[in-house]
């Protein structure tokens, strides 16, 4: 039962690293224009799953489809923005030079490039620090610059691996506001997190543990189904505790 507005479809995906099974038969549909959260403890397989969606890894069995086309594909990767757990910035260059470099990789040049750089730096609120070397940036600023780079090519799908880890509550709030803003403009967002209260901010959630998807639904559904008041409780019940 494929929904008309399905943009990501994960079908029977399994992945092993050596003998260790990281993903066990995952099935998941993500719809266009939603904020989907992958919640689970570290080691649950969240990062591996989103890496496969970003085209950086392939499953041992099963398939991942984005816009009804099979991943990995370089064509599809142009429509996806990916922000990894590491900031992945060139510290000896300025923020502008970092942005310029990644923009060129997506084929953005000249006026359009300048315009996009200004736009994304406004979104993450770093306009005043555009020409500073990244080595002078604080941890939070690096995180936001990293996000800005992922937004440069106006991706239709944005994949964020632990985007707010190690970031203070005020900054976290402002980053989430940026996500909502992008979402209103139609970007589908996939966020991984192990922070329960952050999960409440997502439209739908997938709960992961030990490489399996133990439940999928809106935060309200998940809580109602388990008669619990918090996502944390729901997670424990689904997890069989």
């Amino acid at each position: 039962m494929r929904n008309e507005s399905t943009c990501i479809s994960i079908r029977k995906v399994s992945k092993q690293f050596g003998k260790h099974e990281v993903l066990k038969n995952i099935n998941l549909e993500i719809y266009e224009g939603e904020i989907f959260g992958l919640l689970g403890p570290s080691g649950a397989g969240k990062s591996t799953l989103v890496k496969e969606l970003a085209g950086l890894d392939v499953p041992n069995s099963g398939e991942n489809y984005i816009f009804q086309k099979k991943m990995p594909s370089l064509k599809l990767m142009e429509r996806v923005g990916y922000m990894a757990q590491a900031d992945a910035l060139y510290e000896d260059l300025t923020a502008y030079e970092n942005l310029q470099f990644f923009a060129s990789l997506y084929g953005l040049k000249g006026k359009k490039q300048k315009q996009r750089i200004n736009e994304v730096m406004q979104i993450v609120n770093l306009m005043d620090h555009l020409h500073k070397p990244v080595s002078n940036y604080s941890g939070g600023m690096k995180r936001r610059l990293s996000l800005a780079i992922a937004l440069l090519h106006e991706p239709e799908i944005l994949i964020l691996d632990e985007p707010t880890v190690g970031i203070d509550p005020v900054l976290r709030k402002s980053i989430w506001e940026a996500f909502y803003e992008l979402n209103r403009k139609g970007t589908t967002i996939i966020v991984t997190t192990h922070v329960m209260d952050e999960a409440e901010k997502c439209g739908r959630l997938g709960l992961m543990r030990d490489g399996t998807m133990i439940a999928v639904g809106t935060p309200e559904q998940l809580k109602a189904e388990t008669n619990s008041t918090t996502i944390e409780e729901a997670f424990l019940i689904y997890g069989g505790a």
Partner: protein
Amino acid sequence: MRVTALSIRILRQIIRDKRTLALLIFAPILVLTMLHLVFDGDDYVPKVGLVDLPEMITEQMDLSDAEITEYSNETKANDDLAIQEIDGYVVLDGQVPSIFLEGSDPSVNGATLKWIQSAFTNLQQNGNTTELEVDYLHGSSDMGSFDYFGPVLLGFFVFFFVFLIAGVSFIRERTTGTLERLLSTPLRKWEIVMGYVFGFGIFTMIQSTIIAWYAIYVLDMMMEGLFIYVLVITLAIALTALTLGILISSFANNELQMIQFIPIVVIPQIFFSGLFNLETISDWLSWVGPFTPLYYAADALRDVMVRGYGWSEIYINILVLIGFSILFMILNIIALRKYRKI
């Protein structure tokens, strides 16, 4: 377009990192200068003892260029020899002069022997001054060790530093996660490798021009051929070093592990580069030579700088180096599959 962006970024990073920039340019210059001073210093002046030689013999000897000590008996000379006051002495054994050397340093032995032989030439020829004239096919009697080692060292330094810097910057690309980010863009794997080749290639061209210019025109290293050939050869060896450095870096998890490859990958190449006589290398090992890139670069550099040869003598060496580079590039593209399958 994407390759250019990558090359520009690499050049920017090199220029920003002043210390590395200095290492790449001034370290080779410093070491070459030191070697120049060490090898092209004054000739060794042997300290020779003459034990009770009759005056009629010493008068005919050419006693210049050595420190002469005269002894009345052999025991005293032996004592001085033991404490290295003298390097050797000559004593008359009946009518035949015999030589006794201290003997612990081969180069001192050689210099002492050479001096004693030339000092006795006059004597042996009984005054007939028919000195042999010596001609050189290559080089000249002024050619010092530095001139002979120089081309090899030039090639070696370019190889060593480019290998290290390229490897380390690729490791950083991996450990900081930027490689993953590059691979999450539609950038193709060969574009990454080519971006590195061009970025470092441009820098290496500047680097080797400066180093070669300094060695030849400031240190007065022997230079019989054309400067442009030297640049072509150093560029070829730099390209090999770059692609090999990147390849080796995929077997290292951090910068320290990259350094650990130096004794395995870089140092052995010195042995086969012609710094030591290749003919005398044990058969057990001599087959390794043709597998080391520096072997070809050193041979070509020596052909140009010492022997004054041109393109027709060096092109095979250059083709081999380019062959190495292409091989390493292909292996690099394959190695990148570890991070992204397409």
